[in-house]
């Protein structure tokens, strides 16, 4: 496991930031950490980085207790609302952080030039950070996180303020890092991006882990189908175990099966047999199938359901 967290708690005075979070993350994963402001995402990351000491529980990074120098050497971090010292240029800043990471001078110069080129910051080496746009600061922030070739990356809102082309480039860069075996933690409010990019996500709410799983699993949980027939479906048509709602007049239907047993565990009710039987029953009553589509939940649906209410949708 790259990250292993057991019953992690953090108390800030009277405020409980984390209340018993357990989590395991495997190598070469793009891991999305979701949750509202104040849900405990940043606290969790700061504990994993060794910046903040947990009140209770255990956390290890790459088999090391968090916060050891050995663990920190393998970690890159891009904080949310980071403020890079404005008196630096891109090269002098990377030189500073590279020096603090213990990278020899020649090596960190080579590496800095390479990263600035990849991140589209080449040619601006003389410009002070004071003169940077938000997107440029973000790219430079990423460069410093990648500088020492870490095995784990913690990125808080990595594409914040970056234009669409830049976002695509950053996504490609992160995919490339994963291909090289790097584990990437992403905190983001851009759910579409997380869905597009991440292999696994976890959703935190008020310091508790509500859901964790692969993006595919989590979005499949909504077991509904869009079905279109050649003519209007009679309102009298029923099928046991499915709830049917008309979409756009009467020829299109949304057919939903209850996917869980009410405790967040999939029951298999959305298995293809269900819809097969439904279509068969429709054919038997003279309806001809024109379109059939599995409706997936977006991460946003899931997220909103958790953020609004008490548990899984």
């Amino acid at each position, binding site marked *: 496991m790259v990250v292993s967290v057991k019953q992690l708690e953090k108390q800030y005075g009277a405020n409980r930031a984390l209340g018993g979070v357990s989590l395991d993350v495997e190598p070469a994963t793009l891991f999305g950490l979701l949750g509202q402001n104040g849900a405990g995402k940043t606290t969790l990351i700061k504990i994993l980085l060794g*910046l903040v000491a947990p009140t209770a529980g255990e956390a290890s990074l790459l088999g090391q207790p968090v916060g050891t120098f050995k663990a920190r050497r393998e970690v890159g971090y891009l904080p949310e609302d980071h403020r890079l010292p404005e008196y630096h240029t891109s090269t002098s800043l990377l030189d500073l952080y590279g020096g603090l990471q213990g990278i*020899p001078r020649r090596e960190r110069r080579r590496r800095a030039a390479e990263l600035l080129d990849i991140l589209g910051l080449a040619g601006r080496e003389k410009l002070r950070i004071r003169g940077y746009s938000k997107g440029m600061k973000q790219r430079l922030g990423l460069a410093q996180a990648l500088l020492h070739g870490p095995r784990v990356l913690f990125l808080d809102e990595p594409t914040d303020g970056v234009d669409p082309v830049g976002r695509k480039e950053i996504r490609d860069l992160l995919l490339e890092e994963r291909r090289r075996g790097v584990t990437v933690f992403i905190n983001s409010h851009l759910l579409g991006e997380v869905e597009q990019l991440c292999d696994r996500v976890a959703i935190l709410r008020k310091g508790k882990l509500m859901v964790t799983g692969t993006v595919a699993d989590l979005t499949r949980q909504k077991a509904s189908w869009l079905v279109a027939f050649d003519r209007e479906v009679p309102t009298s048509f029923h099928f046991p175990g499915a709830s049917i709602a008309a979409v756009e007049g009467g020829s299109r239907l949304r057919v939903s099966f209850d996917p869980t047993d009410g405790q967040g565990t999939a029951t298999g009710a959305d298995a293809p047999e269900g819809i097969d039987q439904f279509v068969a029953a429709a054919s038997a009553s003279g309806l001809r199938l024109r379109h059939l589509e599995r409706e997936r939940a977006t991460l946003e649906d899931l997220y909103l359901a958790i953020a609004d209410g008490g548990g899984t949708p």
Partner: protein
Amino acid sequence: MNEPNHVPREAADAAGRVTVRPMLPRTFAAMLRDTWREFLDAKVLYLLLLAIAILFGAALTGRIEPQPGGRQYLDIAARAMAADLDGIDIATQSMGDVAGRLNGSMYAITAAEPIDADLPEGHWKATLTRTFIPLVGVPESGEEITDRFGKIADGQIWTITEIRETGTEWARKIGSQTWEMAVAPGRDLRLLWPHRFTLFGDSIELAGTKGAPLGLEVLILQKLLATGLGGTILLLVSVAVTAAFVPNMVRKGTLELLLVRPIPRWQLLVFKYVGALLLVAGLLGILVLAVWLITGILANVWSPGVLLALPSLLVFFALLLSVSVLTGVITRSVISAMLVTVAYWAILFIAGQMNNVAVESRIREANVGKLRPTSIAETIRGRQPRREEGFKPGRKPFYQTTIGRITEGVYAFLPHTEDLDNLVDRQLMRDFAVAGPFRALMESASFSWEKGLGLTLLHTVAYLGIACTIFSRRDP
């Protein structure tokens, strides 16, 4: 040979991953360069260098010229021959210390006129007479006079180039000897000789029309520019610039980027501190060196005592910077760091001044009715000693008042930084043969620069230690 293709083995593994053990010098160098950049960014360096250049330029318009001084230093040299002053410090020891060394003779210059010029490099023709008690004292030879004339303690103000005894044998028998002699200036005469000091051509006269001893002029100039006004302004600017260092570093969003590095937190703070200290050391070095050069070029006096101002000011700044760092860590505010540091400085200054008053009141009380100690230097210049006056009826000496007691109580816990300044002053006074009660005080046992240095360093380390402890324990 294969340099371009050479990749340090430690630097990258097969996956192109950089894996290097952080090393102290590398971390330190990185923080030092960071501090240097931050300092340059404040744009103050150029202003300071400009200010020092202007100072340098203004000072170099100055002229220091010897004035006719008359025969006063011949008289002093003659009078001083009445005692053996070997190994005596004329600036601090009084005539009482010399009493046992009187040789029973009186010497005087009865006639003197310059051979070439009445200037510090001028030669003189002079007549010296010696009066002694016959039978008790024995006649002195010209060689003995040549050996002793012009030497005062370890100073040499005249040397005799030619001497001829002119008194009669009869006069000798009743205790009177006379010599005609030609004298040349000794190496220390120049410092005592009155010089005019003018600035901007002739437009500003700084030492009166008659001039003042060259040593005194150089001392005042060096003190004003190095430890006085010049040093104070430079330290104030340094406090203002460095006050931003720590609050900028511990800002949210900046701090995290430093704390995730594989180095202990205290190192970040201490390296920043040392970096700032080295920068200011450089600035102080430039200032002090400039002052030394200015006075050297102007007056052709190159004694290195003023260079002591560098460590003295630097140790003081080290203390101020530790206060600034501690405040910066606690408040994370540039303004607070600046204000608290300046306030601390002000408290040290006021407490130091008040403590001086208390110490003086003790010395004064102990000496009521006695003659004020007068140095030999003052005595041979003809100053009359005064008696210490008593306190007015009903008035207590300051140290016995409530405020005085509080002052001395508080002062005991403060770093005695003015002793570092006194150390420089004392050295300058020694260099330039300047005497007086102030120097006498600084040569006395009540002044200890070692204690001042120790207490200052102790406070510095304590503030820095507290700052590191807070910095290491607080959640970002």
